[in-house]
């Protein structure tokens, strides 16, 4: 391509990472984290697309359904940034490929993020902090808060960078048909995971309408006022 490439600078990527802190801010029952996802992508979209039509299309593209563990959204954001960058530079990356990457990664990564952060790291740090705090020691809350946020931010930034580099590598290798291969794989993967998620999170029959059926925490705390009936799903 003759024209100069639009690149996302480190500053742009930092802006996206910072905004992804607010990923769940507009969490809603219809498309879950979509608003926060779009909000996170805005600095990149602003940089990459200049016409009103392109910008509108990009914004709409990133308002589609999205839901994962809020921290593992970062590597997905990284890959998506790389794909958008190539698209803005004229490479053929269609909407389905971008959705495929997002959806294909979100389910399995949520399956990693939930046990690692919610069921391992937080109980560990929480128990450490709580045991100090129960003795009235101010260090308890401080250690918990500081350690958690350092780990969280480091994880989010480095995995986003990792995703961005991995995504760029895929799209650089144009001649080898690598991009085509990965996007086909992504849409297959995406549809497969969607089928799975719909069964797990939506399916009204033969159980009831329950988005809650995979929630271990609710169940273990015996909150049956939400009518959690048969608990068979694991994470």
């Amino acid at each position, binding site marked *: 391509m003759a024209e100069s490439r639009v690149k996302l600078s480190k500053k742009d990527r930092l802006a996206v990472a910072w905004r992804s*802190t607010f990923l*769940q*801010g*507009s*969490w809603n*029952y219809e*498309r879950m984290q979509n*608003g926060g996802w*779009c*909000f996170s992508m*805005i600095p990149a979209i602003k940089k990459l697309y200049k016409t*009103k*039509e392109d*910008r509108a299309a990009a914004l*709409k593209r990133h*308002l589609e*359904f999205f*839901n994962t563990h*809020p921290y593992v959204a970062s590597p997905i954001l990284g890959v998506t940034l790389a794909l958008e960058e190539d698209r803005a530079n004229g490479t053929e990356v269609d909407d*389905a490929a971008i959705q495929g990457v997002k*959806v*294909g990664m979100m389910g*399995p990564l*949520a399956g*990693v993020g939930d046990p690692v952060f919610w069921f391992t790291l937080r109980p560990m740090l929480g*128990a450490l*902090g*709580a*045991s100090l*705090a129960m*003795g*009235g*020691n101010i260090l308890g*809350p401080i250690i918990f*808060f500081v350690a*958690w*946020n350092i780990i969280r931010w480091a994880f989010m930034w480095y995995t986003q960078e990792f995703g961005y580099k991995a995504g760029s590598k895929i799209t650089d290798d144009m001649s080898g048909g690598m991009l085509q291969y990965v996007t086909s*794989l992504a*849409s*297959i*993967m*995406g*549809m*497969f*995971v*969607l*089928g*799975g998620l*719909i*069964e*797990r*999170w*939506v399916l*009204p029959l033969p159980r009831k309408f329950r*988005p*809650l059926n*995979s929630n271990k925490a*609710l169940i273990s*705390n015996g909150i049956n006022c939400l009518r959690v009936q048969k608990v068979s799903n*694991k994470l």
Partner: protein
Amino acid sequence: MSAISMILVVLVAFLAGMGGILDEFQFHQPLVACTLIGLVTGNLEAGIILGGSLQMIALGWANIGAAVAPDAALAAVASAIILVQGGQGVKGVGPAIAIAIPLAVAGLFLTMLARTIAVPIVHFMDAAAEEGNFRKIEVWQIIGIAMQGLRIAIPAAALLVIPSSAVRGFLESMPAWLNEGMTIGGGMVVAVGYAMVINMMATREVWPFFAIGFVIAAVSDLTLIALGALGVSFGLIYLELKKNAGNGGNNGGSSNTGDPLGDILNDYE
């Protein structure tokens, strides 16, 4: 409690409410929220001890998928306010927790309400996207976050002026049909979100994978990671087979879509 303390308590509650949905900074964890309320009301030590005790109970509470755990933010803020109002210091920790947990469960209603209100918010974002208006999307996102802050700040303010039993009574007085209706409605409307993604991704080629995923997910012992591994494997196998078929057959070379199956299908049409 002085007016300044009250304002600060509501402010902490607002932070905790935002933290509860974002799940990033952890302001909603009892360890942090109770300590902060203790700090701003001059009951630092009791606040820390309360935070530690409640944290132990809340260790396993987490938001998974579309579900939400008992509201840690409300439990933390409410118990701290009750503790401070009680004026018993460290001795009040036990009773404060005992009152706060049922309140946090009743408060799940507020979580559902907030997440339902967020549906129209993202529709406003859709409209803003249509015009390519970044500013409006950002504003709506911030409104969404602020609404989640109010989710805890309003009950906290109420607890400061009226007894906790009245607050709990109010939360529990929500008719069952409304509560259940939102649960069911939430479960249904998420299907719309999924359908929109499918619309964008589905081609004749990938539909079978959707069906396979749907069926296999019914094996509830499989984790999401297992589903992911299966999906990748199916995809790799399929693409490999497709490549071989393409090489073996006669690739006319007239089209370079790189999608032999698509070419074949196009030829039939």
